[in-house]
């Protein structure tokens, strides 16, 4: 039976916004965004297999300013989800549960993701990879 005015447990509004919940939300958002990236990876493979005109069409789309912005977003999401995912795997193994510890690993994941993303784009834009 649904009862009006039943006491509720504390909900989101009562908690202070902090690093732990921000990174948790970002992990989920980056994961969902990377699912869209999987769609583009699939499109990339299908376009390559479909011939030069189809590939040129997709490459043109991705080379546009909006396409490059999206690719930058996917690279950042990938590196963040990877670094924070490693944090999650340590938690699953029962390690890193102290509050100072999880704050430190959280900031480490954010900084590492930023550094890896920048390094990736420096190599892409300077062409030092090929």
């Amino acid at each position: 039976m649904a009862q009006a005015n039943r006491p509720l447990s504390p909900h989101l509004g009562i908690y202070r916004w902090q690093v732990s919940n921000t990174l948790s939300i970002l992990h989920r958002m980056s994961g969902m965004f990377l699912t869209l990236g999987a769609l583009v990876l699939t499109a990339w493979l299908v376009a390559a297999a479909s011939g030069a005109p189809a590939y040129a069409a997709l490459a043109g789309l991705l080379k546009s300013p909006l396409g490059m912005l999206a690719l930058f977003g996917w690279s950042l999401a990938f590196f963040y989800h990877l670094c924070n995912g490693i944090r999650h795997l340590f938690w699953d193994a029962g390690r890193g549960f102290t509050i100072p510890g999880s704050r430190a690993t959280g900031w480490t994941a954010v900084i590492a993701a930023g550094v890896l993303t920048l390094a990736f784009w420096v190599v892409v834009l300077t062409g030092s990879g090929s």
Partner: protein
Amino acid sequence: MGFRSPLGRAIGAGSAKSGFEHWWGQRVSAAGLGLLGLWFVVSILGVDLGDHAAVSAWIASMPHATLLILLVVTLLYHSNLGINVVLEDYVHGGKLVFSLAVVRFVHVVMAVAAIYSIVKLSLGVQA
């Protein structure tokens, strides 16, 4: 894997009597994706992505073709599980059943299309 007691495993115990495979599969595919994803991101730095012939040759050659198929399968498996978890939090009842089916369908279609494309390039079939 050491997360369950032998008795619990034998009688299929757990809060919902099932679901452990989902949790474990997400972790195992995460570890695999860490390696395969890093391989992919580092490797494509050496490919001229604007050149269709170069890209096709790169996808088609070994060990890239094998690793790409492994990447696609692991990625889409992990992606499907992850989207499932999000949907289970925000969608309920019949809508949940329906959206889980749609998400799985889309993932299977992506996997088939991607694998077919890699194999096609690898076997040198012209479009």
